[in-house]
């Protein structure tokens, strides 16, 4: 069907959040998905602004 009723659209979106499929090579659609193999590194002394250290480091098993 080519028409779109907004209520139905919402339900579709909600259903997506709770039942749709994660792409084959990446984790997660519950949050913004990670991009496989790509990383962000932050260097020491990167800022003079006083913020709590927030980045989570890669964990060692």
């Amino acid at each position, binding site marked *: *069907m*080519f*028409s*779109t*009723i*907004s*209520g139905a*659209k*919402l*339900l579709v*979106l*909600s259903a997506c*959040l*709770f*039942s*749709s*499929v*994660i792409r*084959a*090579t*990446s*984790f*997660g*659609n*519950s*949050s*913004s*998905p*990670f*991009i*496989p*193999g*790509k*990383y*962000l*590194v*932050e*260097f*020491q*002394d*990167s*800022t*003079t*602004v*006083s*913020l709590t*250290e*927030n*980045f*989570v*480091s*890669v*964990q*060692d*098993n």
Partner: protein
Amino acid sequence: MCYQTSHSFFSTLADNYISATPLINLDYSLFKGASFSLGSGTDEKTTLQKILSLPSVKSVHPLRAYSLPETSGYITSEYRPLSTSTNLKSLDTFPDTFSPHVMTGVDKLRAEGFLGDGIKIAIVDTGIDYNHPALGGCFGDGCKIAFGTDLVGDKYTGENTPVPSDDPMDCVGHGTHVAGIIAADSTAPEFTGVAPNVTLGIYRVFGCIGSTSDDVLIQAYMMAYEAGADIITASIGGNSGWSEEPWAVVVSRIVEAGVPCTVAVGNDGGTGVFVASAAATGNGVTAVASVDNVLTPLLVKNATWSANNSTAQTFGWIPYTPADIANGTYLLYDILNGSNDTSLPCNDNFTLPDISGKIAIIPYDTYCTDGSGMVAKVTDANGKYIMWYSARAGQISPINGTGYGIDSFGMVTTDLATQWTEAMAAGSQVSVNMITPIYESFSVQNTINNVTGGYLSYFSSWGPTFEVDVKPQFAAPGGSILSTYPLALGGYMVDTGTSMATPFVAGSIALLIEARGKSDPATINNILSASADPKAFNDGESTYSYLAPVAQQGGGLLNVYNAAHAVGVLNVSSISFNDTANFVKSAWFEITNTGSESVTYAISYSSSGTVYTLPSDGNPVPSTFSVGSPPEIVTSSAQLSLSPDTLTIGVGESASIQVMASLPTDLTTSRIPVYSGYIILNGTNDESLSLPYMGVASSLKDAVVFDSVDGMTYLSRYLNVSAIPDGFAFTLPPQNSTEEEKEQYDFPVPVSLDSFGTRVLRVDLVPAISNSMVNTTQVLGVDIVGSIVNFPVYEQGRGSWHAFWYGQLSDGTFAPPGDYYLLFRALKIFGDEDSADDYESVKSVSFSLTYASSSATNASA
């Protein structure tokens, strides 16, 4: 210590034989780092450990992809060139009658001469059509869009390599719409932007399709900051609930450095509470919710109608695809033949007489079959033209009906269709005189939205964060907003979403800065929040007697005029009492009299609705919100003690108020009730301020992440998505298989629906037999072979996920053949990452694992 640069970092990697491909260098004042990729054959865990061990490295984080917030629900997305004959206005505009401006006091502030002069707003988005006449018609020094760049190129999808250029032209439309909301000038018919005299910058972070990623967003924000932007705005986000995602942290740093940043809270209101998007979740970031416009603008074609050849009356209709109707006069045919029973066509025996040459009038919203079945009944009767009608005309997505045998689809309002059908029922012949759409420009037809206009849009995402930071901060008009669109896509469009509300706030901050002088971002949020207007709750169909929860509206609908003239200035924008385990027993806030005479304030409070996160049936999955069916909201709420409850403040003086909350005892704490309300300060100068407060009347550490009762966390297999039986035998693809070859195998697929967010999510491989000969490491009290590849992951929001697993572990090795189970573990909210007791866990059934030989793959391939 010398600063590391991205260049020296990659040199260090090379010196240490660490293979990584540089992506984006991020050598900025508030963020020094870089992004890089590792090859597909890389042992990622070992490589990342080597990188982390470098003394210059502070942290490493996987890149996330971000999308433009999807609009949901009442979508209005018609792009059309507007008729140049319509109501051109002068002087940007006095009087300003554009309804979103009138709703928020922008009209009154502009009448005082504030139009955003001298303020620079940077937009992070899809680009801008800078050739648009209402946006200045050029890009560069001296233009309205004066600075910025294209960071990605047309072909960037979020997963490939960006190809920057100097040309931030918009091929999507989103950024041009955002730009017009801020700064369209009076060249635009029917409207202007909030602050038409600001200077805009544009940092293009999307290609023509796809998403963008952390590194590009951080680059855009840092470039905008270093270009001297006074305000930075982004209508971009991803379901999160956490404030610590890298992009959100960088935006927080910019806010801390003095630049207000507005970010859309998201369009996931349908999924209930605790779904605020990153980077709106960032500390100090202004998260913006959406309110529906009180008028719904329709971009329509004009035609005329008459009954029994009476005087012709002009009407507007929305053409869809196709809209191939020849100039001329057509009789209308009411498919219900005067009945109000919209189920009539559902009858299998329902047929129409020959309606060739007539336009069939059909109710859009209520019919039993799918629309194509309805269309078939029209074509069976030789009909070629359909005019739908709906009370939500203009709030419905563009319709493409090509291929159904109909020459023209259109839509009108229910009010107009009712006039027609009543006239026909009374025996009149109703005819319309149509003009082929291609030969006529569009015009704006405003209809009053007396259902949701002025109330929170039901699609607008709800906070708070999982750690009970108040989000959103406040709301602005975002539902059904007319603005500019790329000339190649029609020039103007009505669109809907927190994407539209967010630039509205950016423009409003520009007016506020111009009117009051520059302030730090926190003070700006404090003023805007206190002067905002808390709105009653509306579920998309009905308005309730109580205020909408702070989790939905923050401080309420912006009132920019009152903000500009606020005398009492608070030192906070909201109060969070947190959850019961972290309960803030006593909070303080301060008010300063910035006026010219003493003011006495009477201080009271008004509770808003308390929303239950979880449904009443014991299901740990949070309640969703569809139109007319919101999560359960009750009026029982916290009682506040305010001391003092009246005070007089002299000119330039400040005073403190203590706030203590007593939690209600009649709430079902297992359903995670989120209570909230507003502290009201009524001044003798007729000023009324409101301070939103919020808390959770349960311990969030008890929130369930894995719905194990309903079995929503389990191990599936690729070729049959369902829980596998105990002892299932997997034969995995050989380790050197291509993606195409892998898909021929029935490999394991861990699946979960996470009811709540978690800061750490693990999926570990554990030997099924405790005395297995496989090497193991004890992690959080369990001997594991390793985490499956790409795990653990961090800062996960609510929702479902699954992962295709071909046997690789996070250290790059492959699990040896054997018998195992998967152990899913999620760190509870406020839990200690190093404490096994603070994780919720689910064990999968046992399974055996072997690998096919390469020859088997080659044979099957």
